[in-house]
């Protein structure tokens, strides 16, 4: 276990290092550089002044020197300053993080409580009408864009909902937990929808795979009730591959949250990144992207470790 954990940890450090390089290079994609950006509209600076500014930002240094100094301040928790506000980025980012985490985890919760029972029923009633409806429903769920589901939810609730759930804005968890979860109910529902489809399909095919095994026949022939066979023997084993992709699913949800936050006017990390793009506040975009990717990598690490703890077979692969 410890050896596996150590190997996995080393891998994560390597990936995070790679992620930092990609995010650093992202800023090189913009036409011109940061100095052009800051002076942008003015255009009165002389070439000498430009050169001096570039020197100030270290832009006259070779790329790897620039990267190392950027990484150095990154490791000290300095993500740079916003071009727009001039304030340090990290505190703003951390301010927005709880919302995104809460939204993502609520969506994950919704996905699980809906998808797994449906997947189990679908596999048990295989090839029935119910199964057929769920299969088409699953494919539809994969095909409908989450922002459109969000829009339709807003439309329905604002017309017929009598205001049971707010359709925009966020109440912080610390202020009023009930109102907070209420304010994220619709966004989490929209975010979860495609995920429900994926998880349900996974559960169904995994259940069918396990149902073929001999120990299922044995369990049945020793006179166990069907529900006991399904829940105790089949489901437990069928959930193993479903849990493995839970980490990947967090990635879909974090990505989807960026879009969903926008629809419901939620002040999360996604909104910060998108505002950064529209205000050409590139360091903000860079930092936000880095934070979300790092979060995704860390969640995957935790899932993998938990999983290897639960299922010893993984460790010896």
């Amino acid at each position: 276990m410890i050896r596996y954990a150590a190997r996995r940890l080393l891998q994560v450090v390597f990936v995070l290092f790679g992620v930092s390089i990609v995010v650093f290079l992202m800023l090189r994609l913009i036409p011109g550089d940061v100095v052009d950006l800051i002076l942008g509209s003015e255009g009165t600076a002389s070439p000498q002044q430009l050169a001096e500014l570039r020197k100030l930002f270290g832009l006259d240094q070779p790329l790897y020197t620039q990267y190392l100094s950027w990484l150095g301040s990154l490791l000290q928790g300095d993500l740079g300053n916003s071009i727009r506000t001039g304030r340090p980025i990290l505190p703003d980012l951390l301010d927005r993080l709880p919302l995104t985490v809460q939204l993502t985890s609520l969506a994950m919760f919704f996905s699980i409580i809906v998808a797994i029972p449906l997947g189990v029923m679908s596999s048990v009633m295989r090839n029935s009408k119910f199964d057929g409806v769920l299969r088409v429903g699953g494919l539809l769920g994969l095909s409908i864009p989450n922002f459109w589901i969000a829009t339709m939810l807003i439309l329905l609730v604002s017309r017929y909902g009598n205001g049971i759930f707010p359709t925009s804005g966020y109440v912080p968890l610390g202020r009023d937990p009930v109102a907070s979860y209420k304010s994220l109910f619709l966004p989490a529902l929209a975010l979860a929808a495609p995920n429900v489809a994926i998880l349900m399909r996974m559960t169904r095919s995994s259940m069918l795979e396990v149902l073929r095994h001999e120990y299922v026949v044995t369990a049945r022939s020793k006179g166990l009730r069907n529900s006991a066979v399904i829940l105790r023997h089949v489901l437990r084993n069928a959930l193993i591959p479903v849990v493995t992709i839970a980490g990947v699913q967090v990635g879909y949800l974090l990505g989807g949250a960026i879009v969903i936050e926008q629809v419901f006017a939620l002040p999360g990390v996604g909104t910060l990144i998108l505002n950064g793009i529209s205000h050409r506040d590139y360091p903000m975009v860079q930092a936000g992207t880095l934070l979300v990717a790092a979060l995704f990598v860390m969640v995957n690490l935790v899932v993998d470790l938990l999983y290897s703890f639960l299922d010893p077979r993984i460790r010896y692969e």
Partner: protein
Amino acid sequence: MNSGSAPSSVAGTPEMLNGDSGRSKSHYHELLQRLRRDRLTTAGAAILAVVVIMAIFAPLIAPYSPLAQDPLHLFADPSRQHLLGTDDLGRDILSRIIWGSRASLYVGFVSVSIALLLGVSLGLIAGFYGRWLDTIIARGLDIVFAFPTILLALGIVGMLGPSLTNAMIAIGIVYTPVYARLTRAMTLAAKRREYVDAAIVMGARDARVLRRHILPNVTAPLIVQTSLSLSLAILTEASLSFLGLGAQPPDPSWGSMVNTGQRLIELSPWQAVFPGMAIALTVLGFNLVGDGLRDALDPRMRN
């Protein structure tokens, strides 16, 4: 596609379906038959046919110009004059949806082609040459996989500047690793076959071995993946356009239509409702065909 040189074996054996030997006519016949028997796949293909025809013949089919404004009929409900109503500028929603299919399909095909070309090349190189090249490519892919796809696409478009072309580039990059990983795995499996050793011993150059002996083994899963990637690419394009980072106004694009419709939903729901349905149906078409292809090409996957 029909290589002709390979000996035709009995149609429908599992080896054949996995693309082991060349494809005889009967193989494709069998495949087509199997696909046609599946009603869902047929439905998917029909949806796609309609969307493709819509895109190609947009100027002939669309009742109005997608840009023609009618200031007297803003936010009109569906009527005989405007089948799906009009938008905030009085433009015909149906016409804009028909023209918008071009953006969706165009971005979908171009970006998936980029991903396919890059990904398959990387995968073949990594799988075939192995060693340090493989290590570098595999580690590189791990890094790209560390980003949620939409986030990476957003980041790239955000830096390059919002436009349909940049969206295509970003989506192409984002879906490259899937192809690379798939191709690498299949190449590794194919490389161990005896006929590959035989070809190398006989002095075939690498390029020939890759093209004639390795690539045919990879095509079946690649076809399935492409259908699914197209659905994902179109969804991603729709999301980017919805966020204002894809097609720029006044060009019609389904994602940006939903965006405007969503902001003005109190005034009229139709501008948000119908383009969203168009996205969902098109993506559903690719998903249905992808599922059908997977079942038909690999019977073991069928439940």
